[in-house]
């Protein structure tokens, strides 16, 4: 047993941290936050040059062919830096869907373009309120064209292509759902940006009107593929959340050391210390659950569904907890636009919803634990 990342993987994490510290300062994040750019294009290009976008994409498809443990350590750093780029949509969702279900031609077309930073991808699943469920997919696919509206679609306004969940049957079973690949630049779509909690990662509404689409994976397999994609993305997002949790904790700790009130460092008051200690506890539990998820993801273990749900829940709770208490430690200054605390608060709460809500994943976890116990 060795329940840790390898030295090479840790080195990659250090490299990613160094790169992001230089290229993704809070000042750079604010350009996107303030609406002056839809995402940080220069950073995106840099991530491609570093090989980070294609780290888990096989060499045959233009990637570095490293693996998912390597992607996990990069994800952690992306979360820590609050990177304002469509990384999760492109790399965790679109690329993973292609890797699982794409034909050779589809992989050849899109994966090298993802790795080189030329193509941004996303997953178009949700249609208004509700969690991932076949019955919430109303958009129809017939004769190779899609009709319906997806919202919110993460990074939908900047994406070049989307993996779209569509209804191809009415039996009431999971097999009613199929996946399609849509070139968003080829017409048949209307894209509208949506104001959202975290402006550093855009959300959009995409209306598909007789939009041409090609199937991704076999007909009727859509839900099964999606479940795998969401599980894999849950682990990767958990690492972003762990990185964000750590950064929020650090910010709170640093402020508690610097700020003087009542003639002493506020970090010497137990009310403040204990709040920070509890943040550390959440972050540590989330990290450990995420490591288990990383192991399951990288080995495609039978434990992945349960491990992914546990990582998702633990990391979501930790990031929300650390981000909100970081503001509390900062007091009034934490509630200003000027201080960076709210960027993590926004990101934490947006990420808590992106792949489905906390209650959804809680429900999933219990289902999966029961399935395992019954097996």
């Amino acid at each position, binding site marked *: 047993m060795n*329940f*840790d990342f390898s030295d090479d993987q840790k080195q990659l994490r250090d490299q990613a941290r160094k790169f992001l510290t230089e290229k993704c300062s809070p000042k750079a994040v604010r350009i996107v936050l303030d609406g002056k750019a839809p995402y940080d294009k220069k950073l995106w290009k840099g991530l491609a040059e570093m090989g980070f976008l294609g780290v888990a994409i096989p060499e045959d498809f233009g990637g570095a062919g490293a693996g998912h443990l390597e992607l996990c350590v990069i994800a952690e750093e992306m979360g820590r830096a609050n990177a304002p780029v469509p990384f999760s949509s492109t790399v965790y969702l679109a690329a993973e869907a292609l890797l699982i279900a794409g034909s050779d031609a589809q992989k050849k077309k899109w994966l090298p373009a993802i790795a080189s930073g030329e193509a941004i991808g996303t997953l178009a699943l949700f249609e208004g309120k509700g969690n991932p469920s076949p019955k919430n997919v109303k958009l129809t696919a017939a004769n190779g064209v899609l009709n319906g509206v997806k919202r919110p679609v993460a990074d939908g306004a900047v994406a070049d292509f989307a993996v779209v969940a569509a209804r191809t049957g009415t039996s009431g079973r999971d097999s009613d759902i199929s996946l399609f690949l849509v070139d968003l630049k080829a017409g048949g779509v209307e894209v509208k940006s949506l104001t959202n909690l975290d402006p550093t990662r855009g959300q959009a509404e995409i209306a598909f009107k007789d939009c041409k689409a090609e199937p991704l994976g076999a007909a009727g397999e859509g839900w099964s593929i999606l479940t795998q994609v969401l599980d894999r993305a849950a682990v990767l997002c958990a690492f972003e959340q762990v990185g964000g949790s750590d950064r929020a904790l650090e910010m709170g*700790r640093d402020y508690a050391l610097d700020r003087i009130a009542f003639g002493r460092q506020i970090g010497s008051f*137990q009310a403040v*210390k204990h709040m920070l*200690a509890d943040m*550390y*506890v959440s972050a*540590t539990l989330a990290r450990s659950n995420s490591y288990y998820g990383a192991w399951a993801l990288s080995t495609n273990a039978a434990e992945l569904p349960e491990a992914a749900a546990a990582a998702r829940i633990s990391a979501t709770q930790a990031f929300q907890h650390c981000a909100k208490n970081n503001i509390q430690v900062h007091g009034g200054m934490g509630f200003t636009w000027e201080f960076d605390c709210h960027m993590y608060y926004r990101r934490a709460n947006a990420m808590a919803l992106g792949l489905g809500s906390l209650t959804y994943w*809680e429900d999933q976890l219990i289902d999966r634990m029961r399935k395992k116990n019954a097996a």
Partner: protein
Amino acid sequence: MNFDDTPQEAEFRATARAWIAANAPKQYEDELRKSSLGRTQLKNANILEVAKAWQKKKADAGWACLHWPKDYGGRGASPIERVIWQQEEGPFGKLSGMFIIGHGMCGPTVMAFAREEHKRTYLPPLASGEKVWCQLFSEPAGGSDVAGLRTRAEKDGDEWVVNGQKIWTSGAHYSDYGILLTRTDPTVPKHKGLTMFFLDMKSPGVEVRPIKQASGASDFNEVYFTNVRIPDHQRLGEVGDGWNVSLTTLMNERMSIGAGVSTGFPELLEYCTSLMLDDGPAIEDRAVRSKLASWAVKASGLRYTSMRAISALSKGERPGPENSIGKLVAGSMIQDVATYALDLQGASGVVSGPEDAEVAGRFQAMLLRAPGTRVEGGTDEIMRNIIAERVLGLPGDIRVDKDVPFNKIPTKGRG
């Protein structure tokens, strides 16, 4: 990152498994499996005797105190092998409860500070469970503030004479030896005037009085010392260096990872799977599932945190105070879990007799024992201070007694 046994680990596991299958007291397996916090006892046998017999059997075959050197009664095993053993020992590991303090804290302290002949004399019977040890630190005047202890040791020739009182001493009533932290110099600031010893609990002048706990049981004791004489060669560390010696003890407590903190989660999950509520099985209920899931990830988070620590340990890294989170998280969790399990029972949750209560009253027993887990071995608040100060690097509390001679520190609050 992997969870697979190496060939050597697999071989170790197979050997351990075979030996346990051939030797464990199987007649108690089911009862032990079902026992939980607040109720670890056997119906038709004295659990202490069963525990001692199992420990002796293990020691004779080289399966006791696996990580200790062979010369002192151990096996010289690696941290991972120790974890493998614990996994294989399963419910029989619950029989180790009475030895945890001796093996986890007293033994390592003796190993670090006693003279060689003492180590060879005292450690093997400690490992084999023939002799049980306790730890005499806490006092009425020094709980969280251990360094505020007042038990005096005064030099008299080659001996020390001890007078005072200890409290919350787990297992003192069945212990043969103890490690004892005393004040040898009250004229210097509190951390500087302490000295550590070990002593025979049967020494004249030692009196053990069980404490009846809020739960009704008696795991802890008061121990009184009246002119108890301890030879100087039983001193552990230098005179006045007792505080540092005690830190070694506590550090070893943290190194003895994997002892497995109990969270109550497996019991609750099992219960919710069979429990019927008005609208169907509890496990189908949305609110129940949400609670269960939140506890599930705490329990798994603790499990994987300890695996990370073991990985670090096996690479020669020293696990730090970050392991304090185990007790902190599990203590309040098991209390919440027990409270919730009773809530699910409605009015009948109040019935606690093993004959009449649901699942033999295990959650009622858990509830009553749980407050102790948040206090013993360092309160939740002390644990948070440790994390804040030693992991996060936040400043210590302002200590008004730090540079004051011990005998000048106030001893009364009001009046």
